[in-house]
């Protein structure tokens, strides 16, 4: 399992893996926002957490369709399906590797984008913390979509369409926790704990669903 983790990490960091493309896309999405809503710093500070969250959500979806597809193309997916370890664990490991390689850089880049958005230090910290806790859920939900669309030649857009509706609760609680950290009357902890609960819930449901879909998608 560790070998699989390392292999996936190496593959995505090397050229053609596209791990850093996600970060670039994230920065571009966030940088486009001020052009759309105007460079009013107060407004940007107010909607900043939401923009950073939406940018992270979109960029996390970006690499999802490649999660199992490269394996399917070179045939190693069949080896993963046939090995003795339960497929659910394999999928979970692949999710962790995908998260480490593609989504963790987004979390690390988010404070910088928070500065661009003129957000306060507390807000930046809150956004980073909620992203750290909430983004694994995005990958785990996305693994189901990736597994469902694994046999489709151009499933990238379809994966996003299928996965986005399921990601909305993560977005809601992530953004509301970030706002609660800045605005005084709302407590920070309840939405944050719900966010953690969603992540843990999908840590169970996501790999099970993805494994089921992978078994059934095989020819």
């Amino acid at each position, binding site marked *: 399992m560790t070998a699989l983790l390392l292999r996936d990490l190496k593959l995505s960091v090397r050229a053609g893996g596209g791990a850093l493309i996600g970060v670039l896309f994230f920065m571009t999405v966030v940088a486009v926002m001020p052009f759309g809503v105007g460079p009013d710093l107060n407004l940007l500070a107010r909607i900043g957490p939401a923009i950073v969250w939406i940018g992270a959500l979109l960029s996390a979806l970006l690499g999802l369709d490649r999660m199992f597809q490269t394996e399917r193309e070179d045939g190693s997916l069949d080896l993963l399906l046939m090995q003795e370890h339960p497929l659910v664990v394999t999928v979970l490991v692949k999710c962790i590797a995908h998260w480490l390689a593609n989504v963790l850089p987004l979390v690390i880049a988010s404070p910088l984008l928070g500065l661009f958005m003129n957000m306060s230090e507390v807000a930046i910290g809150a956004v980073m913390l909620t992203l750290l806790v909430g983004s694994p859920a995005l990958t785990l939900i996305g693994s189901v979509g990736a597994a469902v*669309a694994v046999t489709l030649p151009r499933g990238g857009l379809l994966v996003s369409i*299928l996965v986005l509706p399921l990601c909305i609760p993560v977005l809601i609680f992530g953004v509301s926790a970030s706002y609660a950290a800045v605005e005084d009357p709302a407590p920070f902890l309840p939405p944050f704990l719900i966010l953690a609960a969603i992540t843990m819930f999908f840590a169970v449901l996501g790999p099970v669903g993805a494994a089921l879909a992978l078994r059934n*998608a095989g020819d």
Partner: protein
Amino acid sequence: MTESLAITKFSDLANPTRFLALAQRILPYMAGVTALLFAIGLTMSFTTEGDYQQGDTVRIMYIHVPAAWLSMMCYSVMALSAIGTLVWRHPLADVSHKAAAPLGAAFTLVALVTGSLWGKPMWGTWWVWDARLTSVFILFLMYLGLIALNRAMDDPSRAARVSAVLILVGFVNIPIIKFSVDWWNTLHQPASVMRMDGPTIDGEFLRPLLVMALAFTMLFFTLHIAAIRNEIWRRRIATQRRMAARLAGRGD
């Protein structure tokens, strides 16, 4: 004993010919009952007095509420069929959830459009991003996504199994829709018919509403069975075409 009998009856339906025979027999009756219920329901909804505050717009409720209920029930039917696909490999279940998705999308669209038409005079706006409206809209998007997924794959049995997984994962949304008005304090009113302490809605409005709900349910099942039948026919025609093409190739 009766239960095992019911199970045998149910697995008998796995034979498409038996299902087609059954559909042939019951569809005319179901269509008749649906038409009758709609006739009664629509007459009742147009003869009752309007609300003293909302006037005639309250009649939108007789379409809006049943359509919204049905949009959720359709997803539950699809989830049950998805379990049937994955657990029992029931061939009819594959066809069933594929046929139900466009119906569900249609009912959800009706609920959204009528809700929007009702919202304009009552709330003063076509659309608000309130929890219930948003989650129903997401349900609509999920239906469309499932239809897209089904259409993207050419092998029907694989498409059925894969979309069954997705249906079950997406089933998480149904309780969110159901309880969204209780969990979040929003513009959309909380449930007023299905309550533990009896309906809070007046009998004057409740009677036509229930008849209309029954009519919509019958409409759904009629259309669903007809859609399953059409899908079976479509697959048979595809198979026969393929066989004919093979024979034609050999005939030279």
